[in-house]
């Protein structure tokens, strides 16, 4: 019961934030709304016992990425963003597309629980405790054992990101 109430709460937060993100005139407002939405998603993570991801969402996404966004918005001239024209006159087509996607997805997903017959044996009941708690340990374990390779690849990815942003943004290299 409590789960449901929290789900609604966080879902509302997520959707509200998302709608505001794409409708607010000012880029700063958009960014702040996005943070609200991300907090909602973080809450949903927590609700599903993904404590590690909850932390990452707060620290990396909100604390890192969104800060970067805000920083850049401040760096470039803010006034221009204020004057941004919002929706174009013939926005109906794009809306139709979006509604189309939404309808399709909703149609598929509300087809009932039949759509989510997990393959037999896919769920691992033996580690049910994992979902109940100890998630962080298990994740850490997986990252350095089974998923060692993508973990190391991620380091390359971040290296490229560092090199790239230095090259592109620095005046003289």
């Amino acid at each position: 019961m409590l789960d449901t109430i929290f789900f609604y709460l966080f879902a509302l937060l997520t959707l509200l934030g998302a709608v505001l993100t794409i409708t607010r005139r000012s880029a700063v407002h958009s960014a702040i709304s996005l943070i609200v939405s991300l907090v909602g998603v973080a809450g949903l993570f927590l609700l599903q016992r993904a404590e590690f991801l909850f932390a990452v969402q707060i620290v990396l996404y909100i604390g890192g990425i969104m800060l970067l966004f805000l920083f850049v918005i401040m760096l470039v001239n803010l006034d221009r963003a204020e004057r941004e024209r919002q929706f174009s006159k013939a926005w109906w087509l794009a809306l139709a597309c979006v509604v189309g996607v939404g309808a399709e997805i909703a149609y598929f997903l509300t087809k009932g629980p039949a759509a989510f017959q997990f393959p037999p044996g896919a769920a691992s009941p033996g580690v049910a405790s994992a979902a109940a708690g100890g998630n962080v340990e298990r994740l850490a374990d997986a990252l350095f054992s089974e998923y060692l390779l993508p973990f190391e690849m991620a380091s390359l990815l971040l290296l490229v990101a560092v090199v790239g942003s230095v090259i592109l943004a620095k005046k003289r290299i």
Partner: protein
Amino acid sequence: MTTAVPLSWYLILSAILFGLGVAGFVFRRNIITVFMSIELMLNAVNLSFVAFSYQLRQTDGHIYTFFVMVVAAAEAAVGLAIILTVFKNRATLEIDEVSDLKN
């Protein structure tokens, strides 16, 4: 495992979030906001991964979500740097002004 919130709710929420991200990408005129819309889409993906993972009682989905976040971070760093160079050269962040390459 009893859960009060069925999987499909999460998936529908994820789909709506994805749709909103797409809408933001298509509607918005400010490059940074457009870029933020991509973050919305990626969050939708994360949400569905975590939901699946929760139902399957696995951690694979969590791992994937983690990597999506890392990718998002790297992409954001490079993307914002590119947006800064665009701004430096054109003094605008209106997306439709950046349309010299065409036909």
